[in-house]
């Protein structure tokens, strides 16, 4: 009896597509997938780009943050994008005078005339600052002294005109005032601020908080903390929950029952409260936050893995594996685990989002992290009371939290759409 050899595989339509795919590289494959998956592809692509962006920020915050997040670099409560209103030195164009210090003269050359507008506290600031610099100079043993001769003028126009005419060497006016009339005095430029505060060094993109810290820099540095907390706690939860779930699902019996009771109890506990309790006991540090949140999510992985294991265990191919004589460990490793793990990988992304949110919640309540840490939750907490006057203090950290959580959730959900129902058609 002869039988027909099958030489060419029959082709359901998916198969031909796969043949094509196997011949192109990974990048082409990703792009071709766009045609296949449509909207889902965009979903995953956009959110992955966002996640990648956030990860990048988290890895190299230094070059990206214009200021040190912890020091006071600007005036307090500066609105986003506003110019800090500081007294600056106005000099003639081409002059090499930059700071107040540059106006110091040798002791015998007398006093340097500097103009201010009458009736404005600028004179005070000038005198104070000049005093400080002078004391410094004498202390250093320099031959230079700074003793300004303060000339008062009626208005800004006169003050600036005096510089142009050469009556004064320089004028001290507020930046905003100068801006408004700068057009009439094309030969004058603003040098640095006399108080040392940055005038226009890129400005403060998102404003400053009540201490004068740059919010934008704080957010950049906060990304690192948020992502570290999110990733680490999810990872720890995964490493603990997955093996336990596999064992409980496969073995069943007493081990399963005991573990499930424990996990269900943990799971039933309101998450944030449990995390609060743990951090309160362990004390404030980033490591303790990670531990607390990890404990929170171990049941999530446990339950999913256990459920999947239970159903995969009943599959015919597992019975077939037993029938060929495979040992339980082998069956777990090669038959059950690979069929269970895809769902875990996808849950991980959504879980990171959740963990970041919980972490922000904890630090919002003042738990877990040292109080001055540049963290989004802490920023939101700090900004609460000023929500009416300085709205940006709460809004931008809140937006940051939202965007990160959105990005991770979208990526996880998108991947779930792609991998779970459609690809594995069984």
């Amino acid at each position, binding site marked *: 009896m002869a039988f027909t050899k099958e030489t060419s595989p029959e*082709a359901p*339509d*998916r198969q*031909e597509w796969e043949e094509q795919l196997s011949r192109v590289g990974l990048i082409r494959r990703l792009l071709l997938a766009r045609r296949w998956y449509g909207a889902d592809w965009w979903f995953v692509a956009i959110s992955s780009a966002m996640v990648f962006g956030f990860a990048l920020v988290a890895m190299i915050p230094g070059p990206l943050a214009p200021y040190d997040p912890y020091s006071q670099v600007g005036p307090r409560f500066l609105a986003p994008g506003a110019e800090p209103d500081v007294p600056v030195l106005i000099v003639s164009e081409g002059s090499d005078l930059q700071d107040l210090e540059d106006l110091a003269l040798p002791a015998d050359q007398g006093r340097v005339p500097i103009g201010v507008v009458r009736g404005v506290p600028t004179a005070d600031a000038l005198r104070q600052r000049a005093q400080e610099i002078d004391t410094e100079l004498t202390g250093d043993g320099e031959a230079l002294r700074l003793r300004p001769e303060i000339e008062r003028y009626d208005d800004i126009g006169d003050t600036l005109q005096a510089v142009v005419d050469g009556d004064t060497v320089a004028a001290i006016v507020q930046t905003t005032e100068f801006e408004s009339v700068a057009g009439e005095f094309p030969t004058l430029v603003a040098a640095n601020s006399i108080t040392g505060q940055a005038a226009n060094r890129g400005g403060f993109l998102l404003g400053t908080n009540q201490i004068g810290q740059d919010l934008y820099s704080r957010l950049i540095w906060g990304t690192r903390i948020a992502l570290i907390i999110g990733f680490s706690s999810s990872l720890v939860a995964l490493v603990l929950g997955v093996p336990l779930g596999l064992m409980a699902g496969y073995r069943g019996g007493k081990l399963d029952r005991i573990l499930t009771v424990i996990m269900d109890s943990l799971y039933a506990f309101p998450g944030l409260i449990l995390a609060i309790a743990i951090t309160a006991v362990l004390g404030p540090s980033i490591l303790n936050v990670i531990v607390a949140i990890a404990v929170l999510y171990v049941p999530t992985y446990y339950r999913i893995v256990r459920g999947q294991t239970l159903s995969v265990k009943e599959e015919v191919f597992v019975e077939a594996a037993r029938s060929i004589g495979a040992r339980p460990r082998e069956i777990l490793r090669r038959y059950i685990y690979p069929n269970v793990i895809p769902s875990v990988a996808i849950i991980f992304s959504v879980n990171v989002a959740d963990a970041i949110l919980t972490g922000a919640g904890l630090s919002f309540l003042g738990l877990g992290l040292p109080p001055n840490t540049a963290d989004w939750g802490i920023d939101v907490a700090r900004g609460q009371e000023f929500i009416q006057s300085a709205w940006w203090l709460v809004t931008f950290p809140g937006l940051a939290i939202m965007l990160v959580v959105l990005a991770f959730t979208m990526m996880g959900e998108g991947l779930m759409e792609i991998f779970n129902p459609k690809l594995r058609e069984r």
Partner: protein
Amino acid sequence: MTDVLYSIRDLIVEYDTRAGPVRAVDRVNFDIRRGEILGLVGESGCGKSTLGKALMRLVHTGKIIDGELLFDGTNLMTLSERQMRQVRGGRIGMVFQDPMTSLNPVQRIADHLTETITTHEPGVSERAARERSTTLIERLGIRPERLDEYPHQMSGGMRQRVMIALALALHADLVIADEPTTSLDVIVEAKFLDLLKELQQEFDLTILLITHNIGVVAEVADRVAVMYAGRMMELGEVNDVFADPKHPYTQGLLRSVPNISLDQGELHKMEGAPPNLLHPPKGCPFNPRCPEVMEICQMADPGFDPVYEGHLAACWLYQRTPSRSSTGV
């Protein structure tokens, strides 16, 4: 001549898959005669189930992109969805393959029946509907007490009979049965087929029986149609088709089925496999596997034409020149 209940002309049903459009039903022409049992056979993927659903305009994921469905004089393609709903159940009933999933698990059998009746015939009272259901159930061999049971309390065979009852409750003219016995045991199947034949006589039913089981068709059908790759390959009186099949596919198919009443030697084995509907072969879709393939088979589509009166085949062996699909009789 013979009275035609349902005339299907140039029916095309397409599915839009991600890899491109697929023609599950590719220009099918045939008639269903009043009072007959027409068997529709084919292997998986040939399009017979899609065709069955298309006849009730029940195609969800695909679309009927062309064709005429002349049911008792009316072209169903011109009807609105509301009008179609009256046709479905009222004039054309359907019996599905898996009675487990086609009955509502949280509804009693009685409710299934009475609701169907009162929805389609608003004038009928609950009581009258209940009486009708009871009579029907008894006729189908189910004790009337069981009307108050839920589907899961009944066996597969009984559930299938409930499905028929649903079709009969509204005095449907045509019953489309899609693999009605595939999930049933052999003895239950035999009884079901007997019942079908009885009902056909008693209620003057017309039945389109879709199945992959050639034996079932031989047992109950008056005429049989053979489908392959979305096309109809052969159609004729059941005795004629079985005794002297014209299309090479039918010939191969009949020879590959084991016959328990014979002492058979080897079974025939067909080479190859059904084509990929995304890229069907040029000409006759069976040509890569046909033992009698000719050059023209690979170039042009044969029409579905009579070999002799009442027996059609889509095959170049019986046609002289390329002709368009003519009417199925």
